[in-house]
């Protein structure tokens, strides 16, 4: 009897392993494999211009922390994020709150704000370049018509990160807004009714007593994904500034690209990628911990 049951259990276990095998193999191949390969490459002096490679231990990492270009890229990324993150979060939240209660135009406005998300950023970057042109750009024409000095948005080291942040904002706000709208829609209506009965009918009270706390899981998600997006800035830099002027827009991912595909230092680029991976992992961890805490509380 028990032997038969044992073999049944074994057969079930085998079937279970057989069923998860295809997915497991794909996950290993597509996600885990490349990560291991990059970590492996970061411990070598592999370049694209020479056959063969040798292990160099942690040399790439020590070089990285001594590298002025790395510090510069990190600083540029943080400055860019400081422009980008608050806007990407609060402008989206504000738009979502403003649109949410509209009955007639909500869907129209949703589509309008979401349109940039659907466009190809590399192509739209060229449009922005034309708009921001220091001489014939529409923005500068507008500025000078008000008697202001023209600004070389993409050519001035003091402005370029802010200008890139503005373009990124334009492209992400619609997406974050839709996330916030989904979060707002999920708040039960009757909580606002209860709040009105309890005397919280002032918009400020409604926001801080109901909307903001109920929106917390969405906010954490938006904050974390937007932070990751900030560190992934690449295409507008590649298309518009190539890291210039004077490396003032050379952000982290662009530096990695330069090291790997322009200077062919694949080992070093791999080390940069691993650092980037660690950074993203920290953000993902924060989000997981925060959302777990919400569920448990």
């Amino acid at each position, binding site marked *: 009897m028990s032997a038969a049951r044992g073999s049944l259990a074994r057969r079930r276990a085998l079937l279970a392993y057989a069923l998860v095998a295809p997915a497991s193999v794909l996950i290993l191949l597509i996600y885990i494999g490349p990560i291991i390969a990059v970590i492996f490459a970061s411990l070598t002096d592999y370049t694209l211009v020479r056959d063969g490679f040798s292990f160099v231990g942690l040399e790439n990492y020590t070089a990285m922390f001594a590298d002025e270009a790395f510090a510069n890229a990190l600083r540029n990324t943080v400055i860019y994020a400081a422009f980008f993150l608050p806007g990407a979060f609060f402008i989206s939240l504000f738009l979502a709150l403003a649109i949410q209660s509209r009955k007639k135009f909500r869907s129209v406005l949703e589509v309008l704000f979401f349109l940039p998300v659907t466009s190809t950023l590399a192509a739209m970057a060229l449009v922005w370049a034309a708009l921001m042109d220091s001489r014939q750009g529409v923005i500068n024409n507008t500025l000078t018509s008000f008697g202001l000095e023209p600004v070389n948005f993409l050519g001035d080291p003091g402005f370029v990160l802010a200008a890139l942040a503005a373009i990124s904002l334009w492209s992400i706000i619609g997406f974050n807004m839709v996330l916030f709208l989904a979060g707002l829609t999920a708040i*039960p209506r*009757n*909580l606002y*009714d*209860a*709040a*009105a*009965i*309890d*005397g*919280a*009918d*002032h918009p*400020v*009270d409604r926001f*801080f*007593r*109901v909307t*903001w*706390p*109920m929106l*917390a899981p969405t906010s954490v998600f938006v904050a974390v994904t937007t932070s990751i997006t900030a560190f992934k800035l690449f295409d507008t830099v590649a298309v518009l500034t190539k890291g210039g002027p004077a490396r003032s827009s050379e952000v982290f991912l662009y530096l990695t690209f330069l090291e790997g595909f322009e200077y062919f230092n694949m080992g070093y680029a791999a080390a940069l990628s691993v650092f980037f991976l660690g950074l993203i992992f920290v953000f993902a961890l924060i989000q997981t911990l925060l959302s777990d805490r919400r569920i448990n*509380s």
Partner: protein
Amino acid sequence: MARLSLQGIRKSFARTEILKGITLDVEDGEFISLVGASGCGKSTLLRIIAGLEHPDEGSVSIDGKPVDEASPKARNVAMVFQDYALYPHMTVAQNMAMPLIMGRLPMRARLPGMRLLTPGFAPLRREIATQVETVARQLRIDHLLERKPAQLSGGQRQRVALGRALVRNPHLFLMDEPLSNLDAKLRVQVRQEIVELHQNTGLTFVYVTHDQVEAMTMSNRVALLQEGRLLQVGTPDDLYSDPDSLSVARFIGSPEINVLPAQARAGGFEVGDQFIPVPHQLELGSDLFLAVRPEGVMVAGAGPRDGRQMVTLAVTRTGMEDLGGEIILHTAVKGLPGIDLRARLQKEAGGVDLDLRNLPLDLNLSFSPRSCRLFAASGARIRAGAERAASLPTSLESVG
């Protein structure tokens, strides 16, 4: 403590008229139930009283003062929602303190993180906490104050919702089907507790329910709504014994009232093949409906005779529900196709030597015309005499 007055309330949602002119006065300290099938507009009416919805026409007054422009806060109403609407991110104590914090603390002390920056309000905050604890003790939820709603059972959540409504001194206490999410046993218990709450507080209660048993057992008066109109307002006994229309008679009472077709004849009416004399002024030959409660129906010859003519119908037994103390007998009336006659028979009825378990398949059921109510084909009640006076007994024979 307050009187509530509704004048000609009308409300439509997207061209569908939900409320078609509701006029209702509720006395100070009264417990009134708004009862009706789902979709009859009772919840909308409650929300209009609360100030959460605004009527298209008509006016709401509290203590004689129109409050149509007033917010729920200004109306000072407390409300318990069907699914309780507790704030999931707040503890029980914070949930219950909400109306007090909103009512007593100024904005600068209410904003998040202002507790430490406004030490001047610490005594007021302590007072609020004490008040919350007092109410929590009354409701026996003081051991749950630090929990969040997700960690509570349905009954506990219900109490928190009651507590949140009770911590302040509202003019009106509004309840929107507060028991519908509880299991049957708890429902009976909480029903009793709400009645006690009403007696202890003396507040004016407006209670919305689709369950006529709740409405009948809890309230001083019941207002029956159907399709946006008030069918009848009266004491539970008024609605049960003296319904204004067939709809009211059918809605109130379980099992449902029996309705038999009848024809008006000179000096009385005919049901089945029997002529029953009544003193009513009936239009000759018109179709009537005769309604009799299941407890008024008995097995022919077995009931106590009152010496008057009984209506007796030959029926075929179609089903029996044994409820323990009583039996609900379902029968089909012979010669009246499609007409069910239900009888509620007491097992321990005095002087009945009848074996209810072994009733024959074919039998005769009878009822006294005294226990009948007569309705016109339109469903309107036909009463003896022209005028309707609520104090008059209006069963058929007692007037004649």
